[in-house]
């Protein structure tokens, strides 16, 4: 706040007194605000724990392995039927919804966006009405409305029905009031062995690819590197498909790693964690000093720079204290879960848990079926989406598509008209101009806002709760309605969504980085 400006003309040794020194005050303010924030958070958590203790209630995660007491109408199997597995199934449903929604919303959005640019009056108007209607109605309302709409679909009939089996493609795709069922592709027994073998085979292919590129760089001409690599990879995949059984020996080293991991003594893990923290601080200081290095030697460090370095070291020391004294459980948790991970990984190789020889197919598929009992219902083989899923899905897709359409339209219009004219002047045909000049540039413009829409769609999947679709929020709510572990469920929700959002941000940023114009 009241920062004294450095007074020009004075040499450094006549520093202002400490309480008027800008660098000191800046850090004082920052640290005191941070202390206040931490104190408030600490106070709140104390209040919460007191309140919880008064109710005789303990926040824990033990219920994850307890029985779920409810069934899911959607998604992967829940075997064993524990609350943890149910939450996992909810997460898978959320991810399925988000992934499929992003794809379809993008496709629909592009079509509508292009329609709005069309010179055809009707297409243009329909596009505008689509956008203006759908983006001005809350997505929650739309999801609920879609639910009513889906009820108008036809009934599901099995082969015994006098009207014949439902369609539209009997045996492959069913769309009805009971949901949508399509062929299911899934990882089979040999998947991990297959991937391991493929990875090993990819090493020589990588070197071949590199040498081909090098050759092209030396001799010029058309590159065949891409095609050759692709061909070799296909051959490798074919080999790995049939010969993945030879990788079953990996079972032994993986189990050995598990045992070794579990044998790590806790103090060792604590030391390692501490060293990581200190090493990170050291690395930060080293890089920082390097960045201040000029050809003329180390630049003069300001007080602010010293503060930064000191603060980094203090943080590292605090982390060490936490690892050693405040939270020793962290180390044992890392040891245990690391062991669990290697054990789980080892299980995927060699003979399976029941000592039955593993099937060799890495990927398998099954066609949807309709049961022939008293009720016509989908069999377990296909990939089935319930009506709830479809309602949420369509709601999200149409809502997001209305935004995507606007982004696409804006992106294309933002490509300077000069570009179109320049392309025409170069003699490019219309479609060439579109493919090689306009769309690549438009893509660069639309990518950041598009990434934001993808994030929004992923977060909006949480509205599935409005129609009872079993996504992670709905399952979580079922859990805490029964055991009141709201705080634990909330932590899981938060962690899950943060990871999802971060992943999407990382992907979008990566694409942005690749697309960005390289500036000198």
């Amino acid at each position, binding site marked *: 706040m009241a920062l004294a400006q450095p007074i020009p003309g004075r040499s450094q040794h006549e520093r202002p007194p400490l309480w008027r020194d800008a660098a000191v005050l800046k850090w004082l303010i920052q640290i005191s605000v941070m202390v206040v924030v931490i104190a408030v958070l600490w106070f709140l958590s104390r209040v919460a724990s007191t309140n919880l203790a008064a*109710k*005789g209630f303990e926040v824990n995660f033990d219920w994850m392995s307890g029985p779920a*007491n*409810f*069934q*899911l*109408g959607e998604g992967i199997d829940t075997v064993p039927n524990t609350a943890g597995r149910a939450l996992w199934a909810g997460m898978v449903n959320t991810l399925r919804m988000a992934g499929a929604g992003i794809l379809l919303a993008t496709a629909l959005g592009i079509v509508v966006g292009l329609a709005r640019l069309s010179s055809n009056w009707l297409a243009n108007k329909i596009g505008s009405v689509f956008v203006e209607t759908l983006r001005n109605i809350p997505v929650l309302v739309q999801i609920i409305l879609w*639910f*009513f709409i889906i*009820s*108008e679909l036809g*009934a*599901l009939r099995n082969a015994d029905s006098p009207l014949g089996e439902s369609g539209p493609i009997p045996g492959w795709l069913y769309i009805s*009031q*009971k*949901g949508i069922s399509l062929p299911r592709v899934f990882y089979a027994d040999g998947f991990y062995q297959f991937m391991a073998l493929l990875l090993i085979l990819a090493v020589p292919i990588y070197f071949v690819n590199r040498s081909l590129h090098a050759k092209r760089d030396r001799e010029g001409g058309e590159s065949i590197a891409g095609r050759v690599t692709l061909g070799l990879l296909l051959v490798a995949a074919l080999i790995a498909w049939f010969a993945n059984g030879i990788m079953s020996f990996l079972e032994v080293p993986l189990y050995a790693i598990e045992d070794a991991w579990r044998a790590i003594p806790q103090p060792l893990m604590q030391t390692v964690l501490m060293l990581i923290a200190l090493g990170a601080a050291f690395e930060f200081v080293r890089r920082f000093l390097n960045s201040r290095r000029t050809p003329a030697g180390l630049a003069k460090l300001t007080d602010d720079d010293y503060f930064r370095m000191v603060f980094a070291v203090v943080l590292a020391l605090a982390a060490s204290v936490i690892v050693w004294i405040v939270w020793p459980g962290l180390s044992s948790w890392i040891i245990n879960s690391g062991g669990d991970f290697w054990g789980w990984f080892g299980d995927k190789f060699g003979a399976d848990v029941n000592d039955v020889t593993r099937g060799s197919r890495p990927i398998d598929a099954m066609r949807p079926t309709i*049961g022939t*009992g*008293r*009720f016509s*219902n989908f069999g377990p083989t296909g990939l089935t989406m*319930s*009506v*709830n899923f479809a309602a949420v899905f369509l709601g999200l897709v149409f809502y997001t598509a209305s935004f995507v359409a606007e982004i696409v339209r804006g992106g294309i219009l933002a490509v300077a008209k000069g570009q179109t004219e320049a392309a025409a002047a170069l003699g490019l045909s219309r479609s060439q101009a579109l493919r090689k000049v306009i769309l690549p540039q438009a893509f660069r413009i639309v990518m950041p806002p598009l990434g934001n829409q993808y994030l929004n769609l992923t977060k909006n999947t949480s509205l599935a*709760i*409005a*129609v*009872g679709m*079993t996504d992670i929020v*709905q399952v979580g*709510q*079922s859990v805490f*309605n*029964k055991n009141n572990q709201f705080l634990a469920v909330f932590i899981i929700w938060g962690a899950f969504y943060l990871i999802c959002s971060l992943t999407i941000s990382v992907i979008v940023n990566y694409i942005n980085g690749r697309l960005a114009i390289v500036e000198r």
Partner: protein
Amino acid sequence: MSSSLSKLLALLFAFALVGAACGGSSDEATDDSGGDDAAQTDDAATDDSAADDGDTVDLTQGGGVLAAVQARGTLNCGVSGAAVAFSFVEADGSVNGIDADYCRAVAAAVLGDSEAVNFTNLTAAERFAAVQAGEVDVLMRNSTWTQSRDTEVGMDFGPTTYYDGQQLMARAADGFSNSSEVAEIDGAVVCTNAGTTTETNVSELAGELGIAITLQTFEDYNQVVDAFIAGTCDVITTDGSGLVGRKAQQQPEGEEWVIFPAAPFSKEPLGPVYAQNDSQWADVVNWVVYATVIADESGVTSSTVDDALTGDNAEMVRLLGGEGELQTKMGLSADAFYNVISQVGNYDEIFARNLNPVGLERAGSANARWNEGGLIYAPPAR
């Protein structure tokens, strides 16, 4: 004015201002309570919380809920606001239904005015917390009386006002009849609302019987019925009252819905819930319910209650305050139950008014009089 003097004066003035503020208000001893705090710093709409806080204080200071309600002049009653025939908000904003009528009955007994009720709409998730925190004096929100809820800290259950039980509903076209068994739903898509005990009951039952069902959950019951009408669900399940009501109102022409098994596969006794450890208030709520039942047994309705006051049924005379001091000993006025019967009616009237329109009949059900094969029974008033 010299500049240093003026600065000194400014400093003094600043501290005087602060000091005056401290001194000026310390003798007011104004509310420094949390609710006020939250309202001041946080929100425009916390007026209710501030008001509720006041009630909580009353509660701890005064002689329990009864005194607090009498002092306040209105009864805070927790209801659902969206439960057909039990408590639903009418177009003009009033709340109706059997639960709402029992709120009115309690208000009539305690305050002499059946309209002195402040209805609070509560979701299923927040209803019990509201009782425990004292936000509502009594909860009439079709809540099932169970061991775990009854023994939970902070709340007790009153006498059951409606005996319900979970059943299934399917189409006659699928080969079901009223005598069908639960095991016949093997392979069906069964729909119910998410996160309720009905969901747990039916999935546990399916496990016991070894049948495979696909359980499809929906966020609210309207969607369940819509999905059943559309054909998304083969079977739906919830409390019998919900099924019968919907069958009467929503069964399409040319289709027949059947409800089975004849004996419900769960017990759902619904009744009032109130705060624990306040037996005076518990007695009041319990006896309001009993009074409506006794009046029903004696055939006293809101139209005949004046005759009964001077009639020869001694029990009714005592109950209505014609003689004795049964009510005054409870902390109520002598004519408390007279007000209940005259303003709200007896059990049969309440039942008929609210549940008959949706197709629920009393005769032959568990809610018939005890001497007619039902379970509605009250201890004698003497």
